[in-house]
């Protein structure tokens, strides 16, 4: 008890618990502070990778969604008066935000949410919320 190194050498469980999360973390997490605590081990990293891939795919389909005929036709600069141009620009900005949504969600949640379980839950919620329905409905 008084000599922690001796205890560690004998205690298999604690040794594994201390060492396991630290090893895979630097490969993907290059954040300096609390990188070991932020990643929940190999499986969590795998799930994180899958969710990141889902976010990229969703973004690709959101790009298709934004250019889908009916959706693209729902905004236009009209006759080109200043007010119509301004509202068109705002609407295009909104479409850009929609396209960026899955990747932005993934990046910001990974950056800001430190608790692995909560991060996973919020990432799954984002993946479900941000399904690119316009492209899916147009393709179906």
């Amino acid at each position: 008890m008084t000599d922690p190194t001796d205890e560690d050498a004998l205690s298999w469980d604690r040794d594994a618990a201390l060492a396991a999360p630290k090893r895979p973390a630097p490969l993907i997490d290059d954040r300096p502070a609390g990188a070991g605590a932020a990643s929940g081990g190999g499986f969590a990293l795998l799930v994180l990778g899958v969710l990141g891939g889902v976010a990229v795919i969703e973004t690709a389909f959101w790009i298709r969604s934004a250019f889908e005929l009916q959706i693209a036709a729902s905004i236009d600069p009209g006759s080109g008066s200043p007010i119509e141009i301004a509202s068109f620009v705002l609407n295009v900005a909104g479409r850009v935000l929609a396209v960026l949504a899955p990747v932005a969600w993934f990046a910001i949640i990974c950056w800001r949410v430190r608790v692995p379980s909560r991060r996973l839950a919020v990432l799954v919620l984002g993946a479900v919320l941000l399904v690119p329905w316009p492209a899916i409905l147009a393709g179906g």
Partner: protein
Amino acid sequence: MSAEVVAPPRARRGARIGIALAFLLAFLWQVYGAVSNLVVWLGFAGVLGSGLTATAWVVLLLGIAIPVVAYAAAVVLGRTRRPLGFALVLVLALCASEALSLSQLAFFLSVVGAL
């Protein structure tokens, strides 16, 4: 020592209110778009001499609800955070709201818009 680094609570509260008001404009723009969409389709249905179906009403009202719910949820979830965290929550809510509104519009056009 940390009091010099971290802004005083009152300043942070003011920053949060400013951020909330700035984002409110973006969300209100979305609500305006959804309301005008409803008005246009009501007029269209009126010209055709038939009212909107119940499903159309639900989907169009959902379009108004999306930005309202997103903004309210973001303010509730983010209000205890620092200004940067609060702004990021609102950014995500705005992105998600735009995406969900597009989904709602696509659903309306392809499924309900056939009247």
